[in-house]
């Protein structure tokens, strides 16, 4: 990205964060207003340039918090920048580890970028990922999957290109029956491919994210994460 694009990207990312945070009740109206006003006033050029130019792509804030820039992978094979908000060591030390069971269509072009992105976004927050049918040599894969979901604190399922092999909906059904908090991401179609068939109505009522690009998916996922994890803890 060129200098002005870097600044524009950071501004847009944070703007979307404040809007989504306010919409999903992570942020109060006052915080939302305060954030948007600061974004309108602040010169972000130096900060953006520093973030994009550093080899480590991290900026430490007073108190030890860190803003990390990572480059995630897009559906069409491209990349997009993404900002992570990483609390300092003290906050991190207090975090409990969460296990997340992940299910999606097993295609090379999905497996690579989706897993890469999830690992970048969730692992730093101590959310460990366990892939569906990770152990393919298991004699009873179905039982493995059920046990995997039962032992998870949360599940993540994606329906991209599951039309001709909708196994992922079975996994969603198991998570639903076992009452494991679940995020279901639904591909809505884009220049890369047509929309996947709608989610069965019986499975509605989960934390659903509709997306057309991975950039859209991962922003919605990341910005909704505090609220989702908060609900897990309350239950």
């Amino acid at each position, binding site marked *: 990205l060129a200098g002005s694009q870097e600044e524009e990207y950071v501004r847009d990312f*944070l703007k979307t*964060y*404040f809007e989504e*945070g306010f919409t999903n009740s*992570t*942020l109060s109206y006052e*915080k939302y207003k*305060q*954030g948007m006003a*600061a*974004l309108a*006033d*602040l*010169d*972000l050029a130096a*900060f953006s340039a520093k973030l994009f130019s550093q080899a480590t792509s991290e900026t430490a*804030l*007073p*108190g030890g*918090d860190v*803003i990390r820039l990572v480059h995630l992978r897009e559906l069409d094979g491209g990349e997009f920048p993404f*900002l992570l*908000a*990483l*609390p300092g060591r003290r*906050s991190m030390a207090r*975090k*409990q*580890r*969460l296990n997340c069971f992940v299910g999606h269509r097993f295609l090379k072009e999905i497996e690579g970028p989706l897993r890469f992105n999830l690992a970048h976004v969730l692992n730093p*927050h*101590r*959310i460990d990922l366990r892939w569906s049918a990770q152990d393919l040599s298991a004699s009873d894969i179905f039982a493995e999957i059920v046990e995997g979901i039962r032992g998870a604190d949360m599940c993540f399922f994606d329906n991209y290109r599951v039309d001709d092999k909708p196994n992922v909906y079975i996994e969603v059904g198991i998570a639903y029956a076992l009452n494991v908090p679940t995020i279901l991401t639904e591909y809505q179609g884009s220049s890369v491919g047509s929309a996947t068939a709608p989610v069965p109505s019986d499975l509605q009522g989960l934390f659903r994210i509709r997306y057309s690009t991975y950039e859209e998916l991962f922003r919605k996922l990341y910005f909704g*994460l*505090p609220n989702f*994890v*908060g609900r897990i*803890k309350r239950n």
Partner: protein
Amino acid sequence: MLSIDDRLNEIIRQLIGNGITLEQAVEAFEGKYIVAAMSATDGDITKASKALGVHRNTLHNKLRSQTMLNGFAESIQPSRRRLSSNSVRSAHRKSSLANDKALDDLLAMFVDPYRKVG
């Protein structure tokens, strides 16, 4: 040739026509007056304060205001920047720090919700 009064009246008419308030006009005039005195004394605060008839601490405090410093920076010649260059750098530093502080606050708002994740 126009008298000082006539020239002042002309300036005042222009200021009023441009919607400049009395407070803004007084501030601008004071700033320019001080800048002229500082310029005439090569940035020597003690001499300038004597010329202006104010205590040097008063002048020092007035020079601290960013508006005043900007005016000074614009008016003074490069060769006479002995005091102003430091002051202007200081003003820029303050402005930069203010931006940094506001940016830190903004980014802290971004990080806060993620303390509870995990």
